[in-house]
């Protein structure tokens, strides 16, 4: 029985190969002999690019844009717990005017720069967290945060219009803004406004 099956199997295989071979012969007979030789086609692949003689344009590597954002690797950086802030003071309206230093650290005076009339507790909470924030060292200048917990719509406004490219950062490399705040729990992306002008 097994012999028979094997016999049939090989017979079928043989017939298939025979058919393929005959088909190939028919196809090849239809084209000129030079084209039938695959080696020729491979050999004569066109050289796609040709060098120019007049001058030289040397292309450098693609430079990825620099991203000005919070440096998440900063040790001891804490996030602001939005729901906790909500619990502390759900009408809090706090404005923090801070400076981004040469090293990217966020600097402000907790007494003068945190403006929070009537919401001292929330102001303290925000100030404590924000003191631990550090940015990538590409921009310096004044950055203003306004936390309006009770607002409908934009609850956080960040004004970056006073930030300037730090001296020493390559002027030709594009510089983009990345994540500028580190807030957990409850604040949606749509509730944040970044003011650039």
């Amino acid at each position, binding site marked *: 029985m097994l012999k028979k099956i094997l016999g049939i199997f090989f017979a079928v295989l043989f017939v298939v190969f025979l058919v393929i071979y005959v088909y190939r012969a028919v196809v090849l007979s239809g084209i000129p002999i030079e084209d039938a030789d695959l080696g020729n086609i491979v050999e004569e*692949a*066109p*050289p796609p690019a040709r060098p120019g*003689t007049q001058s030289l344009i040397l292309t450098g590597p693609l430079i990825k844009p620099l991203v000005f954002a919070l440096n998440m690797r900063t040790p001891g950086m804490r996030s602001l717990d939005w729901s906790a802030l909500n619990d502390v003071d759900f009408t809090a309206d706090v404005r923090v005017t801070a400076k981004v230093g040469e090293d990217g650290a966020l600097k402000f005076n907790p007494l003068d720069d945190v403006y929070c009339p009537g919401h001292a507790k929330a102001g303290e909470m925000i100030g404590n967290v924000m003191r631990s924030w550090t940015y990538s060292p590409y921009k310096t200048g004044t950055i203003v945060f306004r936390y309006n917990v009770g607002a409908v719509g934009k609850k956080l406004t960040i004004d970056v219009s006073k930030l300037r490219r730090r001296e020493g950062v390559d002027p030709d490399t594009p510089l983009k803004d990345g994540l500028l705040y580190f807030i957990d729990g409850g604040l949606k992306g749509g509730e944040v406004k970044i003011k650039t002008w």
Partner: protein
Amino acid sequence: MVFRKIDPAKDIELPTFIDVVFLLLIFFLVSYSPITPKKGQEELELSLPTAQGAGEVNVNEPLETMLIEIVPLKSEENKEDYEVWVLLPFESYSNSQKGRVTYRDAKTFSMQFQRTAVLPKDVAALNEADFLRLPAIQLMNDQIDSYVTSQFRIPHPTNRIDIRADQDVQFRIIDFIMDKCSSYEDLVPSMVFRTRFKVE
């Protein structure tokens, strides 16, 4: 005990016979050495046609396109110089539709129609005008002109000119041929160098 009688003629089996034939074949293959390794080889493991270059080519190879050969001159007094051969894949321009000719025939035709000239070994010191006045340069100039204008009508990747040159030929010569080709814009997009490579 029963002994079977062995018939020697009957016992030479086909597989054993094939076995022996293949063994012989392998023996001859391995004992045949097509190249003798040279002492003090170049570190880049590459060899271009050298003084003996012309002797090693396949003379029966049909030429596909114009072949410019720059080989050392054979005569004794000018051993330092090269001779340039312009080989055409047909007998002459008037007879260009007749079909390909072999390397050997092309060489004969080139001799017959004087498509060969002597080229000094050192052309670096020549100024541009003197360089262009060299007979070999003029020969290549005229022949490339005739060949390209008569054979290449439209730009095509297979339009090319073959070069087989001694490895010490100065780049100025090659540069001249390349410039000549590029003066036809896209008509001759590439050249082919015939080389011999050593494989590590």
